[in-house]
């Protein structure tokens, strides 16, 4: 019974992911590193290697990437992207240069070929918007002055991904320079076109997809995402970017509804994606790259911190806010794995997969951890932060005193 084995294996994997997710929640960390570890355990050379379900998991993983990018696109309206591009171009460029540098330098030192170096630069560059969004909410940082700076840097990174992924896809396909630049031109044109359509005719896309019935809406949206992703892949633009663009084109209440409907699917397939990445990584390849990964992680913490600090300072934010902006950006996660995943399936540089896995394992845990540890020090000692959001608003007693002190000093 072939299907019996598949079900047992799939069920075992998904159940294990559920248990790991629960563990991550209790520990207050991102589940991504645990999913990766789960994948390592189930993969070649792991504790419980899978025999038959790897094919299904591989397709599931690709759908996971599409849904990750699609829901990311849903987060932003085309208007926000265009405004973000105008306002934080300098910060975004700084982010790119400072954070791609450690990966590129490491790649050069390891003597890798150019494509692998470009991949490693991407892995070290891009922050995890998923982990960061959760961190901001958990620590009560959403309302802080520096948060728009952090968010617009993330917007810039996502836009950069929309350009970077097609470049990478082209490079990985090993096509000639001319053919490569043609695809790249097509990709950029497609991105510009989608932004234009979303800005001017967003209502048209919404009118096509719109349905009062959840089931119909789910099928239409999922179908559209897969279809556009497939077409984009056909044009060598990268299926992930296609999905991202569909997300951007949907906006308003429709985007909200689509997000609610597709989030459970996204969670399932994204978890499968992280497992799949772990599956492809042989645990025995981790120790040799551990030292490099650790060095990259240290450099990654410093470079992201510097990025956030400088960007916040440029926006006129005070000292505490600059520290917070720097710390918030440290976490790497899903997108580093997406980039490395593309390279691994193309068969570039065998050590790349395990290096990226180790790098993300460290920084997905370290980013939120640094935030949690630093948070108590990023307030004036006289105003302890109330951890629960339901605690009553400020104690009424000392309030007038503080205000009168303020009046005196002015």
């Amino acid at each position, binding site marked *: 019974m072939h299907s019996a084995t598949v079900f047992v294996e799939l069920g075992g994997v998904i159940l294990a992911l559920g248990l790991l997710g629960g563990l991550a929640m209790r520990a207050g960390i991102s589940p991504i590193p645990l999913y990766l570890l789960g994948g390592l355990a189930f993969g070649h050379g792991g504790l419980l290697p899978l025999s038959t379900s790897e094919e299904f998991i591989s397709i599931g993983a690709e759908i996971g990437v599409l849904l990750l990018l699609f829901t990311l696109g849903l*987060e*932003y309206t085309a208007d*926000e*992207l265009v*405004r*973000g591009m105008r306002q934080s171009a300098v910060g975004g460029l700084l982010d790119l240069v400072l954070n791609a540098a450690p990966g590129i330098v490491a790649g050069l030192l390891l003597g890798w070929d150019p494509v692998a170096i470009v991949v490693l630069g991407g892995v070290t560059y891009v922050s995890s*918007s998923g982990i960061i*969004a959760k961190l901001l909410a958990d620590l*009560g*940082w*959403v*309302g*802080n*002055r*520096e*948060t*728009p700076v952090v*968010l*617009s840097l*993330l*917007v810039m990174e996502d836009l950069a991904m929309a350009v970077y992924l097609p470049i990478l896809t082209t490079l990985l396909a090993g096509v000639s320079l001319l053919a490569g630049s043609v695809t790249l031109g097509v990709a950029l044109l497609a991105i510009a076109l989608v932004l234009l359509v979303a800005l001017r005719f967003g209502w048209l896309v919404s009118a096509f997809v719109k349905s009062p019935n959840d089931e119909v809406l789910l099928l239409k949206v999922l179908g559209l995402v897969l279809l556009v992703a497939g077409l984009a892949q056909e044009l060598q633009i990268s299926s992930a970017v296609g999905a991202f663009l569909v997300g951007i084109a949907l906006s308003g209440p429709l*985007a*909200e509804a689509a997000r609610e409907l597709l989030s459970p699917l996204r969670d399932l397939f994204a978890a499968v994606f992280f497992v799949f990445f772990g599956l492809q990584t042989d645990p025995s390849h981790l120790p040799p790259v551990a030292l490099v990964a650790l060095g990259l992680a240290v450099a990654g913490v410093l470079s992201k911190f510097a990025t956030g600090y400088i960007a916040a300072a440029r926006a006129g*934010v*005070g000292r*505490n*806010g600059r520290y917070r902006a720097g710390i918030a950006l440290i976490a790497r996660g899903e997108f580093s794995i997406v980039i490395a995943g593309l390279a691994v399936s193309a068969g570039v540089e065998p050590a790349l997969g395990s290096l990226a896995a180790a790098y993300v394992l460290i920084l997905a845990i370290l980013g939120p951890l640094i935030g949690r540890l630093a948070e108590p020090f*990023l*307030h*004036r000692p*006289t*105003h302890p*932060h*109330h951890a629960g*959001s*339901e*605690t009553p*608003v*400020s104690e009424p007693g000392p309030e007038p005193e*503080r*205000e009168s002190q*303020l*009046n005196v000093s*002015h």
Partner: protein
Amino acid sequence: MVEVERTALPGIGLRHILTTSRGRQIGVVSHRSGRRDLLIYDPDDPDTSVDDVALTVDEAEALAELLGTRRVIERLAELERQVEGLVTEQIPITAGSPYDGRTLGDTRARTRTGASIVAVVREGEVLASPRPDFRFQTGDIVVVVGTKEGTSAVAQIFRNG
């Protein structure tokens, strides 16, 4: 003019920060889902929100209503302060009143006291803004607005002429 600063939060929604005249800052993050976060900023560090309260759509509306109602009450109190010193008095026309059966013009109440007769209540009915040829009769209640002294003087006129 109240100063309100508006900032877009990509991926989340909008943030408004209001600075009070005493220098405190309050913010509202409007999530696209309709959720609202009420934020209180540190008076010493305007970059840091020291507390946030997540509100559902209904809770946010209830809070907005409370704040709005307070403003209406404050305006009423303000109006009352503006007309401070004015009193209203209701003066009955008794059987022996010298003005029973005479007109409002005959009393020359405004000229003599400065107070105004704004209405007369007759048989449970309010007759607003009576004209000078209005004729009083026993049982009428005259509504007078003016200073304390003025309204007392009008009462004196109706009693004794």
